[in-house]
């Protein structure tokens, strides 16, 4: 600026020294600083420099008009005034426009680059705000964007109710505020919506102590629309990548589950074969003994009892396998439901175990006046047998197994509790899956891994629920809830309190 001032002064001094009047050829030298100012400072600079040149050369032109009227020389001087003004303003306007266009393209490139990476929306907006604040030459800049049901705010903590940004977000139209507070030079604020698909998805807001011209506001509106599209594109790409990642994860999980299932089925075949062979071996061996030997009646009775027990065990395994087969085909177990008193059913099942084992103390506690339930007696026996069998298998010798029943609103709850090692928390959610066996338990006791799956299927076929609670080293409690006969026949819903 000082160079331009010096050049104007120097030209004036040369014109004065030449003393050639208003038509001095040196007057054209004013064009140099005027052009320089226009190219350096734009329209305002060019205009001011032209005005300064006119002011400085006026004392050489106006006296001529005062003395001799509009002579040729005076007219030449006046034409020079007009030329200086024209050159200064036009060159400055062109320079300003070129600069504006350059900055606009730089901003657009900045937006593209900033939003091209895979950062989260919060991070992207923060980066974009930093990049734009420098390029747009504003004092304050904020970008707000909707992200589902929350607002991401870059450049502030929140959007206050009734604020300029809040209004633009709600109205979807740009708003310019001439006076946004402060003393001295007015602080302008402008907020424009970020538009995508014709819908406002956010707001770009700027503040500057000074002018925000109409052209700047138009540029900001265009930038807002561009940011909206870029954000939407980024969001779509991000969503697509997230879906792809989720899909890959699901495929991997499904593959793992299938592999695990395959392994479990292989293990099941081996275990089931073993489980089936054991009673078969017993039946085969004892039946041969009975066939070839003559034994005392007491011994015959004992062997017959053993054979009966093993046959029941064999029958139970076969029933479980049949039920499992139906479950895997998506069918419910076949039931023959009748009104059933629960306490005798529990006592009968428990008696079988009491006679068959002396290793555990099995206690029962049934509330008086339990409601009659709507159940298949055989299915209920298998449910209880499975649960009591598990409790005995997975609790130490000499410990107690408790079987109880209590009335509920609209049903009954049957509880089988043991004082065993318990089930790890991470395995609790899987104990009802077919073939699944708790890793620690697999080596502790024999089992097919289908017992609890069959229990769950049978209970749910009755319209009931089954729940397992366990604390490591304290024991496990399985609660089966079945609807009462009255409830079941009226098809009412109910739940465990």
């Amino acid at each position, binding site marked *: 600026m000082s160079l331009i001032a010096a050049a104007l002064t120097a030209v004036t001094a040369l014109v004065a020294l030449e003393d050639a009047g208003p038509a001095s050829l040196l007057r054209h030298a004013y064009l140099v600083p005027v052009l320089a100012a226009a190219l350096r400072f734009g329209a305002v600079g060019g205009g001011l420099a032209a005005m300064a040149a006119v*002011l400085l050369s006026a004392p050489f032109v106006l006296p001529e008009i005062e003395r001799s009227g509009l002579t040729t020389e005076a007219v030449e001087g006046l034409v020079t005034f007009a030329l200086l003004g024209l050159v200064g303003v036009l060159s400055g306007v062109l320079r300003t426009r070129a600069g504006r266009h350059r900055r606009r393209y730089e901003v657009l490139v900045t937006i593209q680059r900033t939003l091209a990476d895979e950062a989260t929306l919060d991070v992207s907006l923060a980066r974009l705000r930093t990049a734009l604040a420098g390029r747009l030459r504003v004092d304050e800049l904020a970008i707000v964007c909707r992200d589902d049901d929350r607002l991401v705010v870059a450049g502030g903590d929140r959007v206050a109710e009734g*604020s300029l940004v809040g*209004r633009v977000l709600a109205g979807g139209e740009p*708003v310019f505020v001439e*006076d946004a507070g402060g003393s001295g030079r007015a602080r302008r604020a402008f907020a424009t919506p970020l538009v995508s698909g014709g819908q406002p998805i956010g707001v770009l807001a700027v503040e500057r102590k000074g002018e925000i*011209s109409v052209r700047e506001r138009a540029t900001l509106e265009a930038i807002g629309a561009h940011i909206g599209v870029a954000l939407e594109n980024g969001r779509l790409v991000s969503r697509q990548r997230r879906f792809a990642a989720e899909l890959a994860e699901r495929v991997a999980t499904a593959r793992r589950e299938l592999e695990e299932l395959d392994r479990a089925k292989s293990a099941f075949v081996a275990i089931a074969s073993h489980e089936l062979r054991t009673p078969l071996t017993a039946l085969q061996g004892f039946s041969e003994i009975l066939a070839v030997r003559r034994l005392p009646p007491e011994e015959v009775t004992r062997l017959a009892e053993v054979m009966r027990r093993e046959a029941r065990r064999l029958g139970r395994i076969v029933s479980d396998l049949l039920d499992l087969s139906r479950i895997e085909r998506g069918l419910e177990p076949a039931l023959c439901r009748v009104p059933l008193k629960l306490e005798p059913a529990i006592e009968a099942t428990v008696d079988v175990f009491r006679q068959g084992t002396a290793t555990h103390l099995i206690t029962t506690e049934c509330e008086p006046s339990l409601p009659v339930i709507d159940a298949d007696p055989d299915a209920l026996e298998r449910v209880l047998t499975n649960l009591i069998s598990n409790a005995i298998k997975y609790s130490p010798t000499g410990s107690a197994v408790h079987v109880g029943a209590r009335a509920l609103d609209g049903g009954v709850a049957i509880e089988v509790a043991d004082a065993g090692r318990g089930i790890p928390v991470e395995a609790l959610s899987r104990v009802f899956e077919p073939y699944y066996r708790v890793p620690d338990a697999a080596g502790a006791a024999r089992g097919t891994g289908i017992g609890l799956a069959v229990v769950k299927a049978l209970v749910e076929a009755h319209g009931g629920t089954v729940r397992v609670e366990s604390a490591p080293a304290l024991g496990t409690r399985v609660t089966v809830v079945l609807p009462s006969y009255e409830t079941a026949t009226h098809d009412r819903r109910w739940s465990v309190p």
Partner: protein
Amino acid sequence: MWALDQPYTPRADRLSTGTPLTLLAVLALGAAAAVLVVQLGALPPGTVRVVGVTAGHGALLATALAWVGVGTPSQVLAVALIGLASAAAWAAPLGALAYLMPAFWILWLVARGQLTGLGLGTPVSPRGVMAGALIGAGLSSHLLISVSRTLGVQVRVDHAPDVMAAIAYDVGANVLAAECFFRGALFNRAQRRWSFAGAAILATAAYVLRYVVDPLLPKHVELVVGAVFYLALLGAANCWLLWWSESLVPGLVSALLFFAAYRTLGAG
């Protein structure tokens, strides 16, 4: 950030909100009455000048004070001090020093922080004062050179007391009232409603009009055109100075320099 944190309500007040209409009416009636009384020969003609200066500059200064929330007693006191100074200047050449009274009153209000809305009492940068001085000096020197070359008017050095009296009048009434109203009040309000250019055009046009209709301005075409030219430049430059420096002081400096140069020509 204001746009995020503060509630926004569109501006509802008008540009003229807060104008002391009663005081302005009293001043207008007083001026009219003075003209009438002088026409009837009950008072000497000089009385019109005293009342006119009081009413004109008092109205501008009082309006400026009212627009920034200064109370009515302070406005009335400012008008009264201008009236007293005008009367004193009419009575005796040295009486023009009384124009320093309204200036001191304004300084008192500035010291109490009541005029920050006008750009007085806010921090002033040396660069702002320097820019004001440069603009004032530039316009002054251009004025002196151009009028001496075109109209043949020369710098007057033989009536220093008259020049000093005129400068005192500028300090305490002319420049003070004009800058406080046209820049500190009018431009400041306008730039909070419209663009800088719009506000500057409004304030400058009003500023130029005020001097064109001033009975003290000689009604020669050359002088009127020259006054319009220089006052338009001075007004626009002072608008920019206030906008850029956020202080009225640089504008006061440039205007005082310009008017001081003008007084040396003996045109005032």
